[in-house]
């Protein structure tokens, strides 16, 4: 019970202090909207609102990726810099529970970000026939893996600007390699193995399958691979946390 009181209060504190602050709310809305509009203009040379469904998997994946990695990496680095993070390290709850509470806030933020393009699209396109259960699962798994990537950055960065730089170092290559802009099959052959090393590739494919009905791999395989990425990233982060946060 005591552990859950601590868990819930860390999560609540993060949501109130960071995720529900006006700049982050507006960022969470404006960023996905901007991407949506940009893609629409680019795709048809003019405003073709009915194409928006085609863009949804990519827009949702991007919104989650940017929302989660930015927020977690920056908030943890910010708290570590201000030493308020020590208070969490000194609490009599296991490191895993404390980290899980921090991750949960970012996952929720990413989750809600993902549905901004969906709400926008609902006004202009027919969204019937979408497998919403699979969409929710895909968004959740993308949010979890992206948040863990954010955590990996947060463990390594000492300054907020370092966290932002590291985040972009990971995120922008991922956008071009995971099949969001270019199909993986059209990438140079030496880059294709890299695509399959990225969790976002499987998340995007899962979203494509559930929204558009087209995917490269089977949904089950994508889910299993995303779960494997989650486990691997969690273990890696756990190892790094014990090494770098407790000196």
């Amino acid at each position, binding site marked *: 019970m005591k552990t859950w009181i601590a868990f819930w*209060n860390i999560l609540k504190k993060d949501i109130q202090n960071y995720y529900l602050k006006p700049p982050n709310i507006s960022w969470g809305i404006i960023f996905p909207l901007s991407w949506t509009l940009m893609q629409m203009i680019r795709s048809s040379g003019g405003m073709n609102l009915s194409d928006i469904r085609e863009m949804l998997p990519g827009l949702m994946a991007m919104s989650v990726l940017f929302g989660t990695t930015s927020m977690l990496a920056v908030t943890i680095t910010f708290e570590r810099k201000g030493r308020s993070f020590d208070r969490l390290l000194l609490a009599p709850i296991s490191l895993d529970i404390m980290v899980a509470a921090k991750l949960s806030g970012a996952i929720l933020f990413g989750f809600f970000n993902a549905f901004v393009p969906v709400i926008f699209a609902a006004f202009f396109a027919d969204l019937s026939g979408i497998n919403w259960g699979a969409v929710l699962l895909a968004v959740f798994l993308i949010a979890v893996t992206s948040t863990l990537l954010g955590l990996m950055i947060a463990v390594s960065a000492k300054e907020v600007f370092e966290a932002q730089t590291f985040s972009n170092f990971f995120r922008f290559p991922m956008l071009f390699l995971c099949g969001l802009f270019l199909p993986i099959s059209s990438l140079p052959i030496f880059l294709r193995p890299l695509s399959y090393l990225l969790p976002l590739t499987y998340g995007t494919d899962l979203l494509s399958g559930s929204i558009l009905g087209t995917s490269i791999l089977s949904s089950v395989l994508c889910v299993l691979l995303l779960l494997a990425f989650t486990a691997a990233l969690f273990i890696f982060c756990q190892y790094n946390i014990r090494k770098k946060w407790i000196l």
Partner: protein
Amino acid sequence: MNTMDIVTVTNLSKHYGDFIAVNGISFSIRRGEIFGFLGPNGAGKTTTINMMIGLARPSSGSILIDGIDGVKNVKKAQSIMGIVPDESNLYDEMDGFENLCFCGALYGMRKATRETRAKELLEQFGLTQAGKRPFKAYSKGMRRKLTIAAGIIHKPEMLFLDEPTTGIDVESARQIRQLLLELKQGGTTVFITTHYIEDAERICDKIAFIAGGSIVASGTVPELMESVSHGHTIRLAADTDLEPFAEELQAHFSGCTVETGTDHAVTLISEKRIALSPVLQYLDGQGISVFEAKELRPSLEDVFVKVTGIEAAKLKKEKEKGGVAK
């Protein structure tokens, strides 16, 4: 481990590569006492406290806190600790009340309990009005007080404070010392690191001096003073210059060394206790009126200087760097 001891540290070391921050230190703290850990900047105080509270992993040695292995079972040990770091580490965005409630929640306190306790503490620390203000709007003294309040919200058995009075005003420093004494009366054991020797002298039951990562002396304040005291020293001040009588005094009171000083004063130093009455009678017989006789005792600062080899001037410089307290 003595049953009276709440903390037992044995051969504790911390190395960062080739650099030895803490070198095989051992000490114990009795339940309900205030234990002072004194040393200059960089002596190893913060590294030691960080190992004890679980923010740093010892390279070797053991830490036993209330029978709990503080190295292997850190989280259990942390549940009985209150921790006040050298820099306030509360949340700038939250107000005083919210900060205290959040800290209580980290120790699993239920909402009603932590809110009642937070209000009590704000009142105790004179921060009731400030409780609604964001932490970032607090003065340095208020920040320190709220950080201490956050450290004791869950009524810990053992409180660790790292440099609690550094850089704060005289009144806040006095209030903090008073609070520590009250906590001690309530049965809380306190471990305090400081480089303010006067703080330690005023409130600590036991003191350990650390320099270069090693404990160079430890004991109660009288024990430590005894270690630098060489017999008995009395300073006499009279209405006339006593310098011409110094040799006579020394001859008359064998075993005493007489030193002359300014302001018509002499200092008598002896291995044994000096009986005052014969000295006064002798000087009276010489027509000299003594208007002040004072026993000179070594200060804790003398002990510190002796055991660490650090000059008082350097200490003063460190104090000035540290802030304005005192």
